[in-house]
């Protein structure tokens, strides 16, 4: 770029003189070009997005007067303290717990799909696998949730299958269990869990697949040749190499579960998750400071999570 210094305008006609002059200036001053390229997106994201986030953060340091319902604009940590009342802390614990088991379950289900797609799927199968993961990923979120409402309904297909297998007693026994059971699957925490796993699963498959594709087949063969059983190869060779992919995927499943408020609202018990708490406090209750404080919780959790993930090298697998 520095070697050739002839004027680029040498062959341009006189009619486009202005354009050429502008072009010359930009070429000679890359900083100016950079500035022109960057200003619109930086302004958009900086003002609209960061500005909004900052305003939100600010509000979480205000508090609400519980008698008048007005917002008290004095900086205080009282709203954050409210997060630790038993009822509110329960919401946070429930959400984080759900996000954890959803992430673990997604990883277990996603691994075989990703492994097969990365190592064995060839040609047309490969394309089929790719579309097989991309299509559910991009299908409408609400339609997916709706599909599960159909599946888990008392008169739905799952009950029908259990009846057909003469296993209704098993389903009933399961639903009778405390904590995970409920009146029917669609109003039980198990239902919420199933839908979360279903909806976020493709986000787990893709990064694991990307990580596995970088594992050379010869390495697995070497492990086998040196006498490792398939289980040992998996435990000591494949899993450590795939771990960054798993962690990258877990960032999605964890973050998406933390912030979702629609799935637990449609399928599950009436007990709240963080997202629902945010929505309700800003909406009906008009308690913006508490809603803001609740919204900061997933930000902080994800901040810590990303920091750990970065240290484990997860971002190279994205």
């Amino acid at each position: 770029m520095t070697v050739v210094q002839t004027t680029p305008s040498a062959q341009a006609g006189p009619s486009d003189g202005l354009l050429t002059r502008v072009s010359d200036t930009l070429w000679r001053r890359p900083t100016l070009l950079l500035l022109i390229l960057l200003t619109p997106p930086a302004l958009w994201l900086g003002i609209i997005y960061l500005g909004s986030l900052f305003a939100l953060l600010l509000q979480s340091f205000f508090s609400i007067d519980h008698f008048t319902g007005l917002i008290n604009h004095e900086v205080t940590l009282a709203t954050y303290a409210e997060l630790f009342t038993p009822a509110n802390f329960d919401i946070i614990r429930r959400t984080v717990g759900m996000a954890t088991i959803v992430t673990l379950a997604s990883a277990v289900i996603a691994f075989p799909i990703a492994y097969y797609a990365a190592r064995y799927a060839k040609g047309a199968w490969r394309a089929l696998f790719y579309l097989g993961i991309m299509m559910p990923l991009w299908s409408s979120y609400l339609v997916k949730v709706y599909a599960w409402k159909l599946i888990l309904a008392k008169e739905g297909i799952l009950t029908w299958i259990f009846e057909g297998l003469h296993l209704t007693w098993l389903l009933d026994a399961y639903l009778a269990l405390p904590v995970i059971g409920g009146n029917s699957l669609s109003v039980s925490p198990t239902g919420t869990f199933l839908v979360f796993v279903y909806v976020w699963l493709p986000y787990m498959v893709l990064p694991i697949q990307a990580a596995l594709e970088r594992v050379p087949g010869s390495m697995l063969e070497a492990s086998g040749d040196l006498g490792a059983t398939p289980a040992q190869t998996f435990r000591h060779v494949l899993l450590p190499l795939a771990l960054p992919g798993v962690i990258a995927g877990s960032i999605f499943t964890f973050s998406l579960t933390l912030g979702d408020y629609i799935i637990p609202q449609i399928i599950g018990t009436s007990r709240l998750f963080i997202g629902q708490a945010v929505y309700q406090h800003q909406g009906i209750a008009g308690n913006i400071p508490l809603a803001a404080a609740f919204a900061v919780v997933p930000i902080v959790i994800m901040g810590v999570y990303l920091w750990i993930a970065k240290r484990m090298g997860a971002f190279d697998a994205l």
Partner: protein
Amino acid sequence: MHSDRASLKLKIAAAAGLLFLHLPIALIFVYAFTTEEKSFQWPPPGYTLKWFAATWNRPDVWEAMALSLKVAAISTLLAMILGTLCAAAVSRTKFFGRESISLLVILPIALPGVVTGIALRSAFSIAEVPFSTWTIVLGHATFCVVIVYNNAVARFRRTSGSLIEASMDLGANLFQTLRHVILPNIATALVVGGMLAFALSFDEVIVTTFTAGQQQTLPIWMLEELVRPRERPVTNVVAMVVVLVTLLPILGAYYLTRGTEAVAGQGK
């Protein structure tokens, strides 16, 4: 594990996983034809086409669909402009704060949607901006930028810088180079990014609930029906149509990105 054939266990696990991903969506297609009105009864007692006609005659569905298409179109356009500019800046040069720009672009989808939603909502109320199509667009464009950005950055990286230099050395000015060299090279990446951004915006509900006010996009219409069902068969039909509508951009994006690994000037 060391052979070229997958073990039976792995095959079963992978197939089961894929079935788990696809059967629920397939179910939607069956339910769109059911004669049952009041419940989600399985198996359907009978099959009919009348709900397609009923849905066709529902003005609220058409209005929601029109708003969704409009929002998705404008947001996609904005995201394509902003995302491409950003990708061009980040991939062509190294500058101070380059990493923070990438982070800034990714942040709107890295943070939970509910955070983006309430942040925008509270900003609108502070700035006293009334809800309109544009408040929805504002939110959607913000998280669509990253989709276009990711696709464009990947393509810019593969497009050799020497192509641009060659064009300039041969006497083309910056705009001619843009028109005849850069744009043809990144065109498919932009179209793919745009299609995916469109699909994302068309489907988005979490941020939209905070920025829409009383307006109904199609996902918000669906959400209403899910929370307070009015006419279940119509919801079934709309669900099926939504699956088909979002499928098109995805298949298109796949078709266009097939075999784009080899781009002119690559490897230099």
